[in-house]
Each structure stands twice: as structure tokens, then as C-alpha cells.
């Protein structure tokens, strides 16, 4: 005799039916759990490419200041290392360079200068300030040869860069005059709320003119939506002097969109054609100025410049993403003593930001704190391929920046943005606090603890 599954089920006694339901539930639970437990493969950064191929220094012959080094220094170092600028010393003359040549050689050998954290062989970026293998070889050879001066007649002025620059200024918002003081270390972070008289509008490009280049380390610009203007105005009103001390204060998506950041050497930029960031009616702009007083002092009144449009073809989204569980409880706990703690997160923004359509990625950034050692942001393609967006082999909290892709990368529905952060939480890699290196402690997500966030500037194609 045969029975259908339904008949068989109905004929079961009550207890057996409950047991069957429980077993089905357990099987489903197990299947679902297993489906979510696949650990992603950690990103292996590419190491071989033309831009990473070392140059044989012996082929360079004799290297001199005037013929080889001076044009290079003017192009790569002068954005900061000029009299009156933010760097603690200028490198403008042969005498200065000769005196500093061991330090110059060390900085280039360790890739600490010029500050450019993106590793080679990932992808090309705009405004790339890193040295080419040949330039590195020139510096190393010059230092090795005793930093010779050479003949001033050999000097040829370098070609001016054409990358970047704000094409026009439609709106210039000058911040109030403020004299910074050392609030943490030699630094202060001061925020100013700026009126936008013509809002609503779209920002299509930006730049910053520092009022006092000796103290302005970097500037961040952010939209503050109408609903939050009163909150930030209150912070301003409650702080004596112009603006307010905003060290450690945060912004979220609800507050408004990020416009971008400026640091010495940045010449401003136009967003790609047809793209813009919305400044809604009633909104204001927040200008956060990081002052570094290690090289000088004095008052500053920096000016934010914008190109604007009343309409744009596509609105830019500046999305920051982190694993939601990292933000809660032990979700991102990094144990004290862990030499290489790793956390990863993958997410498909086309399902939300892209409304199930493709997205173009224009700029990326990765943010960790002082214990961060390396990080990657990668597109995990649906077909299994991986495309590197940003790889930072040696992370330095002090030199974070936004990396603008030379050509936008396209995320298709189903592709994942994959973020991978590494930390060294041993005693040897702790920040200096109060003049002393702190002892390693368990770390969680927090302003004064650790973070791992990728910022991705994207828009629909």
C-alpha cells in the first residue's frame, strides 16, 4: 500500500507531528547557518606591475641637485615644503636639501614621503603624488652619491601639472577669522558653519584656499541638512569664539553628504561631468579645519570655493560602510596582544544606493585609527574575479586621504564591495597619550578606540 506524503503526515499522532516540525526547523536552521559561515578569502595584493618595477640605479650615472633633484623636489615636495607652508621646514635651496639629504633618503626609502598610502599595482589614481620607481631611484642615487649640487645651468623647470583644479568658482564661503591653539598635542580641530545663500543647489566641484598655510593641515567639507542646522548652531553658540571645538564629534548620513577634503598640494577638482552633491534648501555647510601648530601659529580665515549648478544629471552619493555588527558591543573586538587582527565585510550597494542597477565608483578612502596596519577595498565580482579599488600596505593614521580613481569602476548588481582591515594591537603599536605609549588593551569600535570604514563616492552611470 502506498500513501501520499500528506496522508502520511495527517496520520501522525500529535507528538510526532510536533517532532517532525521541530526536525524540519532544525534542518532549515542548519542549512541557513552553514550558508552564512563561509569566511571570505583574504585579499592578496598584486605586487608585480610596471609601476613597481625597480630601476637599476647604476644606469642613472651621476645624479645632481640642479639637473635631477631640484625639478623633482619642486614637483613633489613644494606643495608643503616651502617657506610659509605647513611643513616644518622648507626644501627650497641646495643648502637646505644637502643638510637634509639623509632624512630625504630615509623618507623615500620608507615611502613615508611624499605622503601617499595607496600601494602600487592596485589601479591608477588622479592626483597621484607618489614617486615613480625612476624618481625613487634618482633620490636614492643622489643621497648615495653624497648629494652633489651639479651645475645650475643643467636645471630645467618641471612641466606644470594639469591634473585637477577647480574650473570656475561660483560660490566662495569664507570662514571667520580664528586663531587656533594646541588642544590635542600640537593640533586643534575647529568646525565652522557656513551659510549657503542660494540653496538648493548642487556642488559640482570644490577647493579650499587656506587663510594661513602655516597652520591649516587639512579641511573637510560637509553638507548639514536643514533639520540639523539648529543642533550645530547650538554647538557654535555654546563655544566662545568663532566656530566650535569639534574634536571627536561625528557626522552621520542623516546630517548631510560629505563634499570632500583639502590638504596642501590639492588644487581642487571638478566632479565628473554631470555629477553633483545636493545642498538642500535651508542646509548649511560645515567646514572642519584641522590646525597643526607644529610649524607656526597665527590667525586663519580659510575660504571654501565651489562650482555649483541648479540641476545635475546624476546625484553623487558618498557612502561610508562598515559591518553593522562592528558598531555594537563586541562586534569588532580586537584582543590585546593580537599582532594581526583582521575584520572583513562585503556588501552590495547596488541593492540599495543603486536601486538594483549598476553604480560607478569615483573615489575611495579607508579609515582606521592608530593601530591599523593595512587595509583593502576590493570589488568581488559575481563571476569570482577581484578588482582592487584601494590597497594600503602600510597604514598611517596621520596620512589618510581620498583616492580619486583615474577611471571609474563599475559595480554591477551582485558584485560586492569587500573591505578588509588589519590591526596590530600589541604593546609595540600603541598611540602616544600624555607623552607615553599606552599599554595594549582590548579594542572595540569607538572614537578613541578603533574603526574600519570605507568611504565610497559613487553615482548611477
Amino acid at each position: 500500500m502506498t500513501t501520499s506524503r500528506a496522508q502520511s503526515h495527517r496520520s501522525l499522532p500529535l507528538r510526532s507531528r510536533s517532532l517532525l516540525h521541530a526536525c524540519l526547523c532544525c534542518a532549515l536552521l542548519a542549512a541557513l547557518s552553514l550558508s552564512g559561515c563561509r569566511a571570505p578569502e583574504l585579499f592578496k595584493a598584486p605586487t608585480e606591475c610596471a609601476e613597481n618595477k625597480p630601476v637599476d640605479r647604476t644606469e642613472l650615472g651621476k645624479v645632481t641637485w640642479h639637473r635631477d633633484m631640484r625639478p623633482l623636489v619642486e614637483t613633489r615636495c613644494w606643495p608643503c615644503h616651502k617657506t610659509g607652508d605647513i611643513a616644518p621646514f622648507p626644501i627650497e635651496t641646495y643648502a637646505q636639501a644637502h643638510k637634509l639629504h639623509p632624512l630625504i633618503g630615509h623618507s623615500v626609502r620608507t615611502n613615508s614621503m611624499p605622503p601617499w598610502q595607496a600601494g602600487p599595482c592596485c589601479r591608477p589614481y588622479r592626483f597621484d603624488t607618489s614617486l615613480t620607481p625612476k624618481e625613487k631611484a634618482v633620490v636614492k642615487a643622489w643621497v648615495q652619491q653624497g648629494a652633489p649640487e651639479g651645475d645650475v645651468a643643467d636645471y630645467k623647470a618641471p612641466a606644470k601639472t594639469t591634473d585637477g583644479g577647480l574650473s570656475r568658482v561660483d560660490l566662495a564661503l569664507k570662514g571667520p577669522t580664528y586663531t587656533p591653539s594646541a588642544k590635542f598635542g600640537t593640533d586643534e580641530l575647529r568646525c565652522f558653519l557656513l551659510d549657503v545663500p542660494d540653496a538648493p543647489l548642487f556642488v559640482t566641484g570644490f577647493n579650499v584656499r587656506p587663510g594661513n598655510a602655516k597652520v591649516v593641515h587639512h579641511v573637510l567639507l560637509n553638507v548639514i541638512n536643514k533639520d540639523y542646522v539648529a543642533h550645530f548652531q547650538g554647538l557654535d553658540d555654546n563655544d566662545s569664539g568663532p566656530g566650535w571645538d569639534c574634536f571627536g564629534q561625528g557626522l552621520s548620513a542623516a546630517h548631510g553628504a560629505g563634499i570632500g577634503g583639502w590638504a596642501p598640494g590639492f588644487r581642487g577638482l571638478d566632479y565628473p561631468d554631470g555629477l553633483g552633491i545636493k545642498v538642500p534648501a535651508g542646509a548649511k555647510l560645515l567646514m572642519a579645519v584641522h590646525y597643526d601648530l607644529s610649524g607656526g601659529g597665527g590667525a586663519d580665515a580659510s575660504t571654501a570655493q565651489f562650482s555649483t549648478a541648479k540641476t545635475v544629471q546624476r546625484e553623487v552619493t558618498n557612502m561610508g560602510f562598515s559591518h553593522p555588527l562592528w558598531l555594537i558591543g563586541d562586534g569588532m573586538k580586537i584582543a590585546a596582544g593580537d599582532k594581526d587582527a583582521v575584520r572583513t565585510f562585503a556588501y552590495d550597494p547596488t541593492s540599495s544606493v543603486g536601486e538594483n542597477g549598476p553604480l560607478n565608483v569615483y573615489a575611495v578612502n579607508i579609515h582606521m585609527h592608530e593601530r591599523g596596519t593595512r587595509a583593502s577595498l576590493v570589488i568581488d565580482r559575481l563571476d569570482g574575479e577581484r578588482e582592487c579599488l584601494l590597497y594600503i600596505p602600510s597604514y598611517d593614521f596621520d596620512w589618510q586621504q581620498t583616492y580619486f580613481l583615474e577611471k571609474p569602476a563599475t559595480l554591477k548588481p551582485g558584485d560586492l564591495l569587500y573591505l578588509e582591515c588589519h590591526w596590530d594591537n600589541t604593546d609595540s603599536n600603541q598611540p602616544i597619550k600624555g607623552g607615553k605609549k599606552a599599554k595594549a588593551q582590548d579594542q572595540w569600535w569607538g572614537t578613541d578606540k578603533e574603526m574600519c570604514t570605507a568611504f565610497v563616492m559613487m553615482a548611477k552611470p
Partner: protein
Amino acid sequence: MTGARPRQVRDALVLAGLLTWMVGSGCASFASFKVPQTLPKGDQRILLGTAIDLNSLEETGYQPLPDITLGSRFGVSDDTDVGGRIAFMPLGRRVTTMTLEVSARRRLVKDASSGVVNVTLQPSLGYRWLSAGGTDGHIGDFSLPLITGFWLTPRNQLIVSPQVSLQLGHSTGANPIWIPAAGGSLGWQFQQRPAQGFMIEASALYTPRGTEGTSGTVLMHVGVAILWTRR
């Protein structure tokens, strides 16, 4: 070159709704649609409901997340019944969740003279699977509501249910997190016929877990359901 050393950016997290799939969609609707009367031995009840979950996390913009619930209970003795519930929210790749829950109810107090007041304990175990933008999350839950019903009229019952719960959340790339919560729900049941009733329920649970700078999160849930009882 832009944006060096952004202390300000430390917290400038544009979470873009990502938190919704964890806290918003994950936590509020365990142990929901609570009724204090246990089913007599051999009776069966079917529940069909729909609910909206939302939470007080600022980053999510208070996005309401709907789900559909199907439940069933069986009376195993005069004061005890067991049951299960499945709830799902099929919103495609953006957010899809499925909840499975089993529970037992033990009636503690029944006003023998009038039957006006009923008190029942309903320990429950739940599991929720979440998928958003290609990432999976898993939440286990233990809830212990104390369900107290007051018959205001022969057909209308007010139900007050204080509750504690403990959840364990896990997702690849993060450490598991424990989410303790306490709160309660307020329900109203209209018994149209002996075999058919309707109920509305609203619940709020507070957990000290929240994002940095907040004092916790309130998980909210509002739902309506229809209940059929078969003797």
C-alpha cells in the same frame, strides 16, 4: 590630495541603512502576538499576521520593515501548549529575512471564578536569518514574556506582557554579539467567534546595545493578526 588625518571623519559614518538589516529587521518581533489563554489538550490554533518593525537608531532613519507571520499552536495539556511561528520579509536583495520560533506556554494564573484574569509564561527560542546586499546575518533569541490578559468584556481582552530577552547576533567578518533587552507589549484581542479572533499588538524593547554615543536602542514592533482555533 585630499582629506588627511580626518579626526572629524572618525564618526562620519554614512551607514546608508546598513544597520537596518541587523537591528532594525532583526530584533523586535520575536515572541510576538501573545495571548495568555493556553489551548485545551488537542486543540489547534493558526495565526496569520503582519507586522512592522522599527527601531530608534538614528542612522537608519527609522525605516519601518514589514514582515508576514504564520503561526500554529497545539494544546498538550489543559494548562500547557506548544507552538511555532515563521515570519518573513521578502524584499529581495536589499533586505530579506526569515524568522523561525518555537515556544511553550504554561498558564500560571486563571481566575477560576470569573476567568477575567489570566497569566501565562511563554519561553521561546527563535532564529532569524537576514540577507542584505549579499551579506548574511544570523540571530538567535531567547525570550521570556509574562502574559497577563484582562477580559474587559466577554469579547475584548487587554493583554499586557512584560518581557526579557537575550539575542546572539553573528555575521561573517564580525565577532558574535550579545543583545540583552527588556520591555513589553500591549495587545488587544477581539474574539469575534469562539473559533476566530483578531488582535493588535505593539511592543517596545530597550537594549543598552547601540552605536557609540547613544544610550541604547529601542526596538519597536506593531502588528495585526487573525487567529483561528480548531477544536
